[in-house]
């Protein structure tokens, strides 16, 4: 259901009016909305399972783990912290200004636009929404049109639970996006690919609208050679968990490719094959525990990546493509050419290249010669190597010995750097990303400093030099006439 420009402008006008009324600033309103959101999730769990299954073939466990569960947790966390987040933060001022007080007050930006992606269509719409509401804004939510059932669900269900004068959903395709981007927003939050991220930021520039861009990149997993079979087993499970077991590789922070030493590659591949079989059975196509590719366009995109003969030659496991069911089985490549598209573009699918190195230390330079990713994963017990990775690479986040779990941490900022994004959210960072931090300084009329005023002379110059140096001792001497 595409919306006409007039409809968008009307919705925006209402959101603006609602914001101006001041209702969203009250802590009661914000808490009510967050509670209503939790209720929405609790009442509609089955509907959400169904929608995600229809859009992406996601199993309810994945849907709960990656969407419903996370949002419930975030909403509850925001509810419990809201009073603290909203409280003004007192700041100390230099003695020079005595008597004075300083504080920083968080205020909502106003009317915000949230554009979400199709791979986690509930999570990526509602997680930013939590932040926007907590911070007291009114919101226009634009879900991705590619996840059709979820977009419908959000448009139908949100007005039943949330304040429809303050939170609106607009569905539609590229044309609707363009129309939305032409409007003046007080903040835009976008999750998607870098190409569109750039378009969003350009549109925002026309109105000097601040943006948070959650983009993607090729997230590498560095595998140091591990000696303990148990550690290897856990590592492989976690890698598969961070690739095929989350929307079948269609994740911005999913493992894109692996870096491993030549001598360890064979062991790794064997272990991967065994674990894939354990998770998905002999014929992953028949497994209900693995998601589908979102649509034909992305299916074709992925198929083309494998068409390159040198890439096809590198397949060591999998490679089955079923267009009718939009299914691609977990596929592993060994050393595809580094200049092939599969190694230059974000894969966003169930194909896992393994790149071998002579020495695992080379992984740092390998990663640094490419755009900064949203996440880097490193499996190692070597504390020195860990330190080298921390200081020697740059990414949105860095996880040791696991994948994807940073989503569960309310206390860690989630965001990219360079091509992988601008800004961050989750936990109180969500609140911050939708707030303007307003500085407030209060003085009294008592205690005037005469030397502050012209006409200027040497004494006043001396005085002010000492004052701005906060050199109170010498200042006192000067005032008492004791300083030469």
């Amino acid at each position, binding site marked *: 259901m595409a919306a006409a420009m007039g409809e968008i402008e009307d919705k925006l006008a209402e959101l603006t009016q609602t914001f101006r009324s001041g209702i969203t*600033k009250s802590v009661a309103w914000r808490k009510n909305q967050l509670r209503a959101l939790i209720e929405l999730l609790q009442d509609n769990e089955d509907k959400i399972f169904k929608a995600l299954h229809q859009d992406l073939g996601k*199993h309810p466990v994945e849907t*709960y*783990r990656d969407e419903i*569960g996370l949002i419930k*947790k975030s909403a509850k966390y925001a509810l419990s912290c809201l009073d603290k987040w909203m409280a003004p933060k007192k700041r100390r*001022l230099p003695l020079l200004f005595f008597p004075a007080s300083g504080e920083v007050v968080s205020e909502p*930006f106003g009317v915000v636009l949230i554009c979400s992606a199709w791979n986690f269509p509930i999570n990526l719409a509602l997680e930013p929404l939590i932040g926007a509401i907590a911070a007291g804004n009114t919101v226009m939510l634009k879900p991705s049109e590619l996840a059709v059932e979820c977009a419908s669900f959000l448009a139908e269900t949100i007005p039943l639970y949330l304040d429809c004068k303050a939170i609106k959903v607009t569905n539609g395709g590229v044309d609707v996006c363009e129309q939305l981007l032409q409007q003046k927003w007080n903040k835009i939050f976008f999750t998607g690919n870098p190409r569109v991220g750039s378009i969003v930021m*350009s549109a*925002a520039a*026309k*109105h*000097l*609208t*601040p943006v948070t*861009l959650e983009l993607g990149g090729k997230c590498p997993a560095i595998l140091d050679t591990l000696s303990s079979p*148990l*550690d290897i087993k*856990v590592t492989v*499970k976690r890698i598969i*968990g961070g690739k095929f*077991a989350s929307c079948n590789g269609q994740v911005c922070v999913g493992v894109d490719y692996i870096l491993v030493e030549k001598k360890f590659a064979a062991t790794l591949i064997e272990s991967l094959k065994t674990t894939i079989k354990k*998770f*998905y*059975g002999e014929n992953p196509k028949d*497994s*209900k*525990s693995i998601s589908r590719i979102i649509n034909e366009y992305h299916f074709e995109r992925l198929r083309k990546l494998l068409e390159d003969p040198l890439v096809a030659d590198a397949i060591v496991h999998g490679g089955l493509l079923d267009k009718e069911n939009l299914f691609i089985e977990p596929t592993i490549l060994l050393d595809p050419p580094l200049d092939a598209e599969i190694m230059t573009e974000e894969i966003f699918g169930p194909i896992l290249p393994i790149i071998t190195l002579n020495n695992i230390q080379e992984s740092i330079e390998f990663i*640094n010669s490419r755009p900064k990713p949203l996440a880097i994963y490193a499996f190692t017990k070597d504390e020195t190597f860990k330190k080298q990775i921390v200081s020697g690479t*740059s990414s*949105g*986040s*860095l*996880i040791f010995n696991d994948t994807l*779990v940073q989503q569960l*941490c309310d*206390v*860690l*900022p*989630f965001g990219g*750097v*360079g*091509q992988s994004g*601008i800004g961050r959210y989750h936990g109180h960072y969500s609140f911050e990303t939708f707030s*303007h*931090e*307003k*500085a*407030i*300084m209060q*003085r009294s*009329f008592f205690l005037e400093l005469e030397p*502050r*005023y*012209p*006409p200027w002379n040497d004494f006043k*110059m001396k005085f*002010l030099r000492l004052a*701005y*140096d906060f050199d109170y001792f010498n200042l006192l001497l000067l005032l008492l006439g004791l300083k030469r």
Partner: protein
Amino acid sequence: MGSEEETKKKNEVFDAEAASLFVKELRGTFASGKTKSYGWRVSQLKSLMKMLNEREPDIVDALRQDLDKPELESSIYEVALLKTSIKSALKELKHWMTPEKAKTSITTFPSSAEIVPEPFGVVLIISPWNYPFLLSLDPVVGAIAAGNALVLKPSEVAPASSSLLAKLVGEYMDLSSIRVVEGAVAETSALLDQKWDKICYTGNSRVARIVMAAAAKHLTPVLLELGGKSPVVFDSGINLKVACRRMIMGKWGCNNGQACISPDHIITTKDFAPKLLESLKNELENFYGKNPLESKDLSRIVNSNHFARLSKLLDDDKVSGKIVHGGERDKNKLRIAPTLLLDVPRDSLIMSEEIFGPLLPILTVDKIEDSFDIINSGTKPLAAYLFTNNKKLKQQFVETVSAGGLVINDTAVHLAVHSLPFGGVQESGMGAYHGKFSFDVFSHKKAVLSRGFIGDVPVRYPPYTKGKLRLLKVLISGSLLGIIRALLGWSKA
């Protein structure tokens, strides 16, 4: 260097190719890790301090040439403020660079987490003409403290300052990581075509849009420090003399009104206006004498363009007859006297753009509370000021007026308070700096989560079952009791 070589250098055009080479060199330096070291950052900050200590007379001189800035303003509001900034950075740097531990929950047990600050890489800093040293070097302090390499592009509208900055950076700073590019639109465009890891722009909102659009092409984050019409609301029942003096300092005492946080206009009640006007006139005379055009304690207007712009505001038909004090101009000396206007129409030119000069309109309202509606009907300014003793009015002001920063019972001083973030909102800017905020704005805060190999929870993995769903629900909720019950098979979920 002989004069022939100097001429040749001057004639070399700084185009996109030259800019690209610059960036490449700086990237090389950054990749070497040089700027990341604590030692390098401290050495550069100390060099900056040395430069300010040794060359203050040159700086004062350049500012006199560019703006006729009074020596005191140059020494205090440019040099001294910078030194404070550097001192504070040197003192706090180790602490700022230390990763911040983050508390993890039982959901990811066992794990440890921290937030590690890292430099963005190569940053571009574009600065304005009104405080050419402060607004160039204060962001530079932040960029260096955060470990970046950088290019500084000072404003060509203050040519003596721009030239001196280029010279001083060349003499005191590490040229493999810090460069100055002088020039105007062409050079700035060449720079903006490049891919930077962060851009800091201080200036007006028109150019800010161009900067942000250029940054968008490369997904470069930006810090925009802009301006706006910063209003001053005058309530009655205050110490009028003190209030007026403080207001005058924020206006004419700051580069003769040519400052982003200068009070732009006053809003007061019809009843209070006459008293306010009297007091302002008195204090203006106390500070600047009977012939303010001759006063050495006032900056001049920066150039003939701005002089013409300000003249146009005064010549606007809508404001003729509204001038109640001052209005004298000297085109040759580029001087305009402190000028007060009373009750100008809201649709006059002077009320539709940021004045950035020594003209001060006074708007009157019936009730003082009406002033907040007027402020909120315009674009959000960088600062808003209120003089009052009324607690309720203060509260209302803080709650309803949105601006970069608010000051009650003073003007402009928040610039010197490093514990407060300094920045705008919407039309007045995005991002903030000063103190630790400078370090933060030039850093990427990387989340680092470390887990062990034990504590693997099978419920995460396929094949998925209803049982796993039950367990997952409690695990994600983080409820310890729920987890124990579920593991023992007692959960009802």
